[in-house]
Structures are given as structure tokens and as C-alpha cells.
């Protein structure tokens, strides 16, 4: 009997009965992992930790893991999110260490909570970023920040897979604060910038803000520049970033 062309034989995959919301960090040398690298690491960790992960139907079943938009290669984060669909209920609190142990050091699970499984996009509207600029004087950075904030529009360019894209970096920036860093890195002065940026399309990244702020762009201070996402969520009443709470789970 020739196999059916469209559907595999065998039983249907088991349905999802529980969702977990996972917050994780990308630290240290693991900041050089790409978005795909992190995804593969989670797929394996879930298997290694033997979580009852659900799979999609079809000839090449994929584990049901939904990733919120991740930081790009080279950028660290304390606040990345994903959700897992499980075929059997588990104790979420206990899963944190189980999953963390199966991941490389630097891809660290911070929190696991039960979730409704709804889309993450509506719950992740803004990001808070920390940008360290070794070799840049805090005064100079503060002046550049002032000019950036005073402008109505700051056009920047970024090379994407579809060519050079030109867009405004100003409107998405809600907060831009420069503070002198205590001490210095390798005897260089170091300006530190805290940013709160609204998620937009195209996304305005910290490097775009730097390009808009600094004469000659971020290239003048790269590669020493260190960028870390500190938080993701919705904007609170005092312009702070409020982490996503797990959506309500209906207990039957």
C-alpha cells in the first residue's frame, strides 16, 4: 500500500492540556547564540528534561513551543519569553530547574508559570534596554541623547536581508537616560544608557537609537558596545516596564 500523500498513518498527536509561560535569560557568551540557536537549544532541553511536550500534526511534527521575538546575535537579555504546549499537566514551579539543567550555561530559565496559551505579542509591547558604551564620555552621550529626544524624527538606516531599510528611530523611544557608569572598563570612560522602546514594525533596536544619536553611528563605538534587554512587557503608569503576568487559566 502506498503511503497516503497528505496525512501520515498512525494516531493523531495528543492534544495540549496545559500551557507554560517561560521567562529566560541569554547571558555571557551565550549572547552570541542566534535566535535559531536558542530555539534548537530549547527543543533539545525539553526532550532531555522529558517534558510531555505536544507536537504538531503532519509528516514532520514540531514541538509546540512559541517564541516571542528574540534578541539578535550578540545581544544579551534578562527577559526573553516563550510558551510551551503540554499533553499532560505538570507542576510549573518544579519545571524551572528541570529545564534549566538541560540548557547550556548562559541560556538560563528564570521563571515558569502556568498560562492560558494566548499570543505573547499583546503582552509584550515595550522593552527596557541597558546599553554600555566603553570609550564614550557620559557628557558627550548625554548631549547626544538630549538632541535625539528634542528631534521630532530621527531617520536611520539598517541593512536587512531585503536590502537597506530607512525608518524613524525617534517615535518608538519612550525613555532615554544617560548615566555615568561607576568606574570604567579597561581604563576607558563608559557611558551607560537606559532605554525604553516601544515594539514597532520595523523594530527599533538599541543599535538604531545609537546610530541616530552618535555622529558616525554605532560603528564608531562597536564592537565594545554591550546591549542587554532588561525587561519586556507592557508600559506601567510611571513609564516603567511591567513584566507579562501569565494570562488567566480557566480551571474547569
Amino acid at each position: 500500500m502506498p503511503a497516503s500523500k497528505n496525512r501520515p498513518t498512525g494516531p493523531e498527536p495528543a492534544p495540549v492540556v496545559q500551557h507554560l509561560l517561560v521567562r529566560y535569560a541569554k547571558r555571557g557568551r551565550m549572547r552570541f547564540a542566534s535566535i535559531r540557536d536558542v530555539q534548537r537549544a530549547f527543543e533539545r532541553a525539553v526532550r532531555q528534561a522529558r517534558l510531555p511536550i505536544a507536537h504538531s500534526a503532519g509528516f514532520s511534527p514540531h514541538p509546540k513551543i512559541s517564541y516571542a521575538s528574540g534578541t539578535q546575535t550578540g545581544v544579551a537579555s534578562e527577559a526573553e519569553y516563550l510558551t510551551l504546549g503540554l499533553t499532560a499537566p505538570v507542576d510549573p514551579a518544579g519545571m524551572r530547574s528541570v529545564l534549566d539543567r538541560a540548557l547550556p550555561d548562559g541560556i538560563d530559565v528564570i521563571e515558569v508559570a502556568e498560562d492560558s496559551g494566548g499570543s505573547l505579542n499583546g503582552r509584550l509591547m515595550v522593552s527596557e534596554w541597558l546599553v554600555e558604551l566603553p570609550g564614550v564620555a557620559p557628557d558627550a552621550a548625554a548631549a547626544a541623547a538630549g538632541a535625539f529626544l528634542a528631534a521630532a524624527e530621527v531617520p536611520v538606516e539598517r541593512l536587512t536581508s531585503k536590502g537597506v531599510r530607512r525608518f524613524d528611530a525617534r517615535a518608538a523611544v519612550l525613555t532615554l537616560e544617560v548615566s555615568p557608569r561607576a568606574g570604567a572598563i579597561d581604563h576607558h570612560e563608559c557611558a551607560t544608557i537606559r532605554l525604553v522602546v516601544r515594539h514597532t514594525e520595523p523594530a527599533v533596536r538599541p543599535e538604531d537609537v545609537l546610530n541616530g544619536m552618535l555622529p558616525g553611528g554605532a560603528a564608531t563605538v562597536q564592537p565594545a558596545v554591550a546591549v542587554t534587554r532588561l525587561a519586556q512587557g507592557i508600559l506601567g503608569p510611571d513609564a516603567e516596564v511591567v513584566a507579562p503576568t501569565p494570562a488567566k487559566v480557566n480551571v474547569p
Partner: protein
Amino acid sequence: MPTESVYPRLEPLLPRVRKPIAYVGGEVNSVVKDWDRTDVRWALLYPDAYEVGLPNQGVQILYEILNEQDGVLAERTYSVWPDMEALMREHGIPQFTVDGHRPVGDFDLLGVSFSTELGYTNLLTALDLAGIPLHSADRGGEDRDPEDGTWHPLVIAGGHAAFNPEPIADFLDGVVLGDGEEAVLKITGHVRAWKRNGRPGGRDGLLRTLAAEASLYVPRFYDVSYLPDGRIGKTVPNDRGIPPVVAKHTVMDLDEWQYPRKPIVPVAETVHERYSVEIFRGCTRGCRFCQAGMITRPVRERSITTVGQMVEQGVQATGFSEVGLLSLSSADHSEINEIAKDLADAYEGTNTGLSLPSTRVDAFNVTLADELTRNGRRSGLTFAPEGGSERMRKVINKMVTEDDLIRTVTTAYASGWRQVKLYFMCGLPTETDEDVLAIADLARRVIQTGREITGHKDIRCTVSIGGFVPKPHTPFQWAAQTPHEVVDSRLRKLGAALRADKAYGRSIGFRYHDGQPSVIEGLLSRGDRRVGKVIETVWRDGARFDGWSEHFSFDRWVACAGQALAGEPVDLDWYTTRERDEDEVLPWGHLDAGLDPDWLWQDWQEALGGTGDVEDCRWSPCYDCGVCPSMGTEIQTGPTGERLPEGTKLLPVLSVS
């Protein structure tokens, strides 16, 4: 000697290179031991990019075996891409290990695993970046002392492409022929004893001990003389106590060597993403072109029980969703049916894929493939008739008839496979245009049969062709390599024949490589020590990553070969397209893979005569090749009659207390 991580200096450069993740290490199951609590330290180099080198079984096995030992440390290092090489040179960063980011020059030993000769230039890059003199002779003698900072690691090569290490002899301190598992432990023991005893005899003293007691081939202890016409006169030891012939290492009873248990799981994307278990080592099918099948004899199987255990532990330790059952021809395991069925049972419903590299042209192979893809898509199956015509297949001792092939693809299409890939070689000894054009006839018959069986037209056949390179320690070691112009012309004719076919042409895919890289592979495969100068010249001229078509430059190799061999009676053609006589001393003549030279020569003559099928000694007792009697080894195969326990299904973890 203290050592320091280069990572703080490396990190600022990482945002500027392609694929920085390849240089950071930190993978699941990687090991960083305390430097000061170990006394024998190995750096293991795979001379290709991280994405290719990481999954390499040889490196993974040795890494695990060495790190399991108290007081022994092993770290991995890979070839860096040219963008990283430029930055490392600019910033004075040496070749480093990805585990501890320690300078390779600080280790006691540098083990290098060669799967292909095209990695030779990458060895030179790594040595140079490590600050290790390229020539072993410049690495010092009696006065070199590990504690005074002038020590350079012993550079020791292994792997299939080191079975004729003569072209890189000048750059190596030693070569391990054959299986590395026991050899690295023996070497480690001697290095430890030598260090504890106050390093008697210095560097040469250690090498002399390793040559005499650990079957290490130390090229420097052998002198090669040449005849006026360029052929080798003889290769002889130049020191007392050095054996005239060096024998390969063979590990017996693979059930006692269950490695890798906890293979490294890369964060970066690599060429193979799976847990691989070698289900047997060696192959005695007797294909005359196949170096691997000749140098890894005899066949030694792992039992079904061991395979089952290794798979269970390996999947658990890695989280890989694919398991590869590796060997040179996996369908030939005496209990492959049981292994495939029991593993498919155990992993059914866990979304774990099983794969089995086997290109046997028979219906059994299809049945096995069916078992491994119970519920999955049946996309493509690969078969390797290797030669297009019946005559050609007789020459290479691949005893497959055209009817066998048609029967096999009929079974494949009937069980739902949509695509069949056929693998061939071009440039085989005695080959003519007609032999290659016969491939087109075969492919046409395959499609015709497939359409009849399935009743529709959406089936495909891909013809994939590699250029044949004569290899040392095979019956074809005396053969003239076919000039690349001839190979290319035959491939063009075959391509034209396939394209011209109105009825079937569009269902047949055609994949090939041009013939030029094979010529350089041929030079490096059968070269002697004089080829070392060519390698160094071409490396100094900028050759890197010769196995990558975007980096390989044939013109550069030709020009540098001309320059380096200018004063010699030999040239590129002499090494490649020249047929050798029986009495010629071959560069690897003093390196013993166990194969009786008379048997190899007779097999070569029978190939030319198109006579004499060589049977597989697993099924018809035969000691003619000489390996078992000369090496004191034996075939180790089942069946054991065992089965994998039922109910071993891996259940998910629901909670932890």
C-alpha cells in the same frame, strides 16, 4: 606552566565575525577541567570549521575517553574562518580551545583528526596561529622543557586521511594508525611517566619511547631515499629501536568501548544534529575503491544490547531527536532487523527519528528503511551501484546486476518512496565513455519502472556522481588517476544524454562536481614527503579550507606545485595520472594496515582482468587479505539472539519533588 583564558581578549572581536557562536564553547556535555590538577593535557583539533568538526565521532570519542581519566584534560579546537584568522593575527590572539579558551601552544599534545586530505592546509593555519613551528624539526630537541615556556605540543595525527601521512610528515611529530581509543591512553601513560621521571632524553626521548612502545609512527625517525627517476628507493629507520614497519591499532570488543556516551550538544547549527552510535566498525565487502573498507578490517560488531543501551543513554544525555546507526554499511549488521524493529518500537510516539546510512542495492535495504519510517514521510532513498555498467561494477567488485537494481527500486517505489538517489563514481580504472553513459540508461529504466509501479509521474531519480581518487592501502593504489579533463568530458556527455531524453529527462536530477579538486585530493592521497613543500607553498600563498569549493583554488595548487617541485624529477601528473608498477616502493609501504601487498596486487590484477569476485569473509571464511593473521584480530559478529527489553518506552517527566 600556568595558562590563561584568551576569552576576555576574544570577546570584543566576536561581534565582528560570522558565526561567533562557533568560538564560545559552553555546549551541553562539554568539559572544562582544572588545569593545575591535571598532568597530561591534550588539545584535539578537527581541521575544519566548527560546524563540520563538532559532530565528528573520532573527536567526540577521544574527548570523552581522555576526560574520564583522572589527571588528564582534553579540550577541543577547530579551524577558524578567514575573518576570525585575520582578527586573531591583528590582535595577537593564538589558536585557542573552545572549552577553556586556552592557547593550544600550552598543551602537552595536539591530536589532529583527519577525515580528508583537503584538511592539510588547515593544519598549518592552526599550528601557525598556535605559535607552534610548522616543521617538527624546529620544535626543538633535548633542551625543550615544558616548564620553561619553550615547550611545543607533540603534534600527533590520526584518522583515515592520516594512513598515508607522508605529505604532512614534516609537520607532524607522530601518527597513530587505526583506532584511537587505546592508543591515546597508551600515549598518555608514556607522557605522564616521562614527565614524572624528569623528562629523560627530552622531546626526542619521549618520541623514541612512543615509537618503540606505543606503535606511534614518528616520521622523523625514518629516512626516505629516492631513485634518479623520482621513485622512492627505500624508507628506513634512522635510529636503533625504531621498528622498520609500523602497525595499525585495532580495538577489539567494541561492547567494552561504549563511546560517546554523552556527546557534546552544539548550540550552533552543525552538519549532523543527531546522536550517532557506531553499530559496527570495519567492512569486508571488498569494494576495491574503498579505503575505509580496507583500513578498518576486520568487522567488529556492537551487540544489539549495547546498541540499545547506548541509544537510550545518548538520547537522554543530549535531547537529540534523531538517532543515527552508523557504520560503513549499516544494513550488514548481523541483527540489524532486530535492532531496527526494537528501536522503532521503543521510540514509537516519541518523535524520535532513526536513520541508518546504508546504500546497499537490495530489497532488504528498502524493508529496513520502511521500518525506520513507520509513520513518517517516505521521501528519498539512496542506493550506490557506484559503476554505471555491469563491466565497471565487476572491476570495482561491486557485485550488483542491473536486474538487482531494478528489483530494488521497484520495491522502494511500491512501498511509497517517491525519490531514489543513485550514487556513482566517474574516473574509475579502465572506464570508458560508454561505462559512464550507461548511467543514463540505468536512470531511464529506473524512472520507467517507477512510473509503471506507482501509476503516476511524480517520482524522481537523482543521479549523483563523485570523481574517483585512488587511495593508499587499496587494490587501486597502483592505478592511474583519470585526468580531470577526461572526467569533466564524460560528465558533460552524461548530462547531455540525460537532458536530451524527452520522455524521462525531466524526472532525472543530475548532481556532480567538477574534476579539478579530485586531482589535488589525489596528489595529497598518494603523495610522498616531497609533497610537503607543495602544501607549505600553497598555504603560504593563502590556501585555506580546501574542502570548500568557495575557498578552493585549483590554479593556485597547480602553480604552487610547479614552483615547489621545480628541482625534482616529479610533478603533479607524476603523482596523480601515472600508473605504478608492482615493484615500486610506495610512500606508505612501511605503514601496515595489515593488508598483504601480494593480495592487494592480485586483486588489482583481477580488477583489470574483470575476473574474480571477492566474497565477503563474514559469510565465507577467508583470511587472504592478511589482516587478521598479521594483526592478531578476528571478525566479531553476531547474531547474539538477544532482543531489547519491551516496555522501555521513555515516559515524560510530569513533576519533580
